[in-house]
């Protein structure tokens, strides 16, 4: 009797623990079924469908409303709804006017623009050429601004009339239109800023876009409201859009599943089934122009200064395995940084890769590393989709051909510092976008005047790049860039892995497509 009692007591202690474990263990299984049932009723609890509010869940907060002083894609993704560029890229690599009604290339160094009349800022001011001059001169003149280096090719902004002006570049600039259709190209209200000052503007930003600023709670949300006097008329059905910051991926997905957000950005493949299996949500993927690559250092003290070693690395890696296994097929193996949709893209180097472990071993043998070689391999963690896994898998692939990659993950600020200061060792894993949509920006890294991260120098490449940079003949310029990419693919200052797809979880109640530049044009998001 006593023993029984004791045992009972003992069970009482363990019961709550067991309960918790069961909860933990079953969480996953119950998930799919019950969540489905819950959503099966059709109504998601949080977002009420008719109030005209679009909620988008993002991983990180935007950083500033100073359009010239950031280079963050996620910040620009929000800015595009509030500001207008002069021109915008159209679907087939050309450009169409945005604020500019028309534009023409007067000579190699001069561009003439005419603005739409009657464009109104959110504060009621009318857009004139003076605002353009104010905006561009700021970024051209102030060296401390992050975007300065992307604009200082413009020599002057000449106002020709209320709605007319011309841009004069410092030498021919074939990429000028790319330049003024990206980060930092939004046009700001000159009078408003001059009267109220920058600080006021930063907390009460004013633009010409379809949405006007409502509030920004740092690390929580940015709220924009529809601007009813938008110069193109009403272009969206959303009265309000909320960008919510939800750093934790599973929380972001859970919000989507429970209807807390319409769109959850950056949903990793691990969560796809959950999103797709849920009634009312699905995964949307789309190509971005971000290319994941391994930056290799060719300074003499490193084994990677030997081209054969670099090629061995390229041959060792099965790019398709990375995209298929880790990204669920949503990525494209590449051999270049310039992907379709960007000026100068090379079709042969897209969707292609080298993979031949045997050859990699041979190359290593030739290079004198038959017994293996040890290199340092740095990678950021939690920065790119599945970055940890990719880095680990790459390490595994390299080890199979005899390259011991000592993988060191760096916390982002340390990683950024290494990248910025060029203090990298043999190899590091990095993803690079191309906000200019022009091969020039993407290939600049490999010129001898570019960064010293790779230590790569090739006179032929330098020649090609400097010619192309000022070549106003589009076709010839494209050829030059394609040639340059071939050289890079051969010499491998970087091993290119794959073009990453952006992945978002989307509620079926909205129609959302991922833009190549990963911005969130709310006016393109429609209600279903």
């Amino acid at each position: 009797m006593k023993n029984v009692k004791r045992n009972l007591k003992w069970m009482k202690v363990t019961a709550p623990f067991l309960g918790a474990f069961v909860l933990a263990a079953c969480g996953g299984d119950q998930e799919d079924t019950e969540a489905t049932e819950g959503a099966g009723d059709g109504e998601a609890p949080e977002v009420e469908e008719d109030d005209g509010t679009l909620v988008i869940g993002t991983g990180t907060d935007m950083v500033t409303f100073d359009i010239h002083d950031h280079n963050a894609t996620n910040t620009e993704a929000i800015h595009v709804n509030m500001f207008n560029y002069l021109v915008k890229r159209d679907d087939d690599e050309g450009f169409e006017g945005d604020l500019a009604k028309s534009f023409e290339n007067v000579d190699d160094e001069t561009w003439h623009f005419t603005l739409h009349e009657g464009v109104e800022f959110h504060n009621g001011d009318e857009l004139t050429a003076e605002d353009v001059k104010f905006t561009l001169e700021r970024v051209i003149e102030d060296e401390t601004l992050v975007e300065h280096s992307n604009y200082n090719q413009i020599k002057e902004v000449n106002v020709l009339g209320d709605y007319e002006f011309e841009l004069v570049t410092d030498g021919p600039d074939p990429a000028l239109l790319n330049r003024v259709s990206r980060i930092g190209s939004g046009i700001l209200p000159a009078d408003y800023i001059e009267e109220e000052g920058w600080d006021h503007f930063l907390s009460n930003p004013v633009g010409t876009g379809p949405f006007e600023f409502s509030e920004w709670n740092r690390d929580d949300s940015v709220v924009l409201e529809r601007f009813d006097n938008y110069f193109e008329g009403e272009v969206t059905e959303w009265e309000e859009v909320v960008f919510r910051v939800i750093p934790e991926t599973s929380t972001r997905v859970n919000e989507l599943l429970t209807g807390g957000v319409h769109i959850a950005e950056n949903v990793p493949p691990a969560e796809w089934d959950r999103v797709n299996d849920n009634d009312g949500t699905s995964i949307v993927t789309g190509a971005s122009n971000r290319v994941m690559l391994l930056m290799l250092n060719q300074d003499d003290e490193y084994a990677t200064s030997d081209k054969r070693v670099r090629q061995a690395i390229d041959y060792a890696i099965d790019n398709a395995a990375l995209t298929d296994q880790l990204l669920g097929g949503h990525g494209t193996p590449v051999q270049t940084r310039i992907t379709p949709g960007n000026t100068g893209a090379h079709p042969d180097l897209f969707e292609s890769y080298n993979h031949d472990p045997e050859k990699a071993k041979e190359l290593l043998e030739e290079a004198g590393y038959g017994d293996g070689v040890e290199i340092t391999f740095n990678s950021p963690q939690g920065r790119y989709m599945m970055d940890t896994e990719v880095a680990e898998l790459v390490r595994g692939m390299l080890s199979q051909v005899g390259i011991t990659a000592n993988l060191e993950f760096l916390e982002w600020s340390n990683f950024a510092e290494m990248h910025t200061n060029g203090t990298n060792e043999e190899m590091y894993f990095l993803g690079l976008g191309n906000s200019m949509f022009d091969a020039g920006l993407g290939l600049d890294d490999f010129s001898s005047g570019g960064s010293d991260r790779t230590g790569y120098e090739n006179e032929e490449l330098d020649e090609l790049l400097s010619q192309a940079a000022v070549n106003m003949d589009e076709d010839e310029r494209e050829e030059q860039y394609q040639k340059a990419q071939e050289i890079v693919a051969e010499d491998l200052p970087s091993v290119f892995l794959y073009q990453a797809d952006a992945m978002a979880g989307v509620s079926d109640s909205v129609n959302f497509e991922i833009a190549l530049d990963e911005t969130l044009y709310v006016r393109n998001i429609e209600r279903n």
Partner: protein
Amino acid sequence: MSVNISAQTEAPREEEFEVSKRPNQLRRWAKLLLRSKTGTIGMLIVLSVCFTAVFAPFLAPYEPDAMNAANINVPPMWLDGGSSAHVLGTDSLGRDMLSRLIYGSQVSLIIGVFSVIVAGIIGLAMGILAGYYGKWIDNLVMRVVDSFLAVPNILLILVILGIFGSNMLTLILVLGVTNWVIYARLVRSEVLSLKERDFIRAAKSIGTKDSTIMLKHILPNVFSSFIVISTLSVATTIILEASLSFLGLGIQPPSISWGYMLSSGRDYLATSWWLATFPGLAITFTVLGIIFLGDWLRDVLDPRSQGRK
């Protein structure tokens, strides 16, 4: 007034004392341990975790970082799709969960134990010095302690790791350097009350040196509460390491700790639950075991609770 018993007045030179029979120390502890169910369970858990950590290379069926891209996210063997080749399934890179779990115990324990040792050594030294000498030394040490207490340790750890990066050594040092204050506080207050005990005065009155008093009289006497706190502290450190992994500042791969496995598996909770659940259970069980053991130690070692019986 009454009879005087003169024969009995001689004080005995040597007496027969009934000093209780001296049990074998080890057996005494074993007996004490077996008497407490939670203590026994705690000890069993802790011993088995230690065993796993020490003999990991012999226990693990696979290398912990052997990847198999064809075999990713395989569920545990008792579920559909599982196989007996991977008892607890595989992770997102096709690595064997069981092997990783076994190897993970090493790092988790090493970080837990060594950071506590670092913290303990600093804390013991500071606490004893402050408590024993008092005056300005005490004031200085206590203000430093106050300062550390005013800043949540995870915050400080976050900043330090953010600056210096995170590897096992820095992690151990940082956890140690930020946690010493609890020991210093505890030890100091123990020393203050010990100082009131006569045996410290007695040692002084005999002419014992300060250094000897601190090492021989104070240290052994604060040691038992120190051990109790340390035990519990190992548990909190294991949890803390997991939280740091969650914030991306914990142990970095290819090293494996349970905390890292748990936090990196969290994205798979809803689809491949075993990735996070097994390390989670491992942490919970281990911490549970350590707390049980620590509580038992407290009951056994704490003179206050001894007096309470």
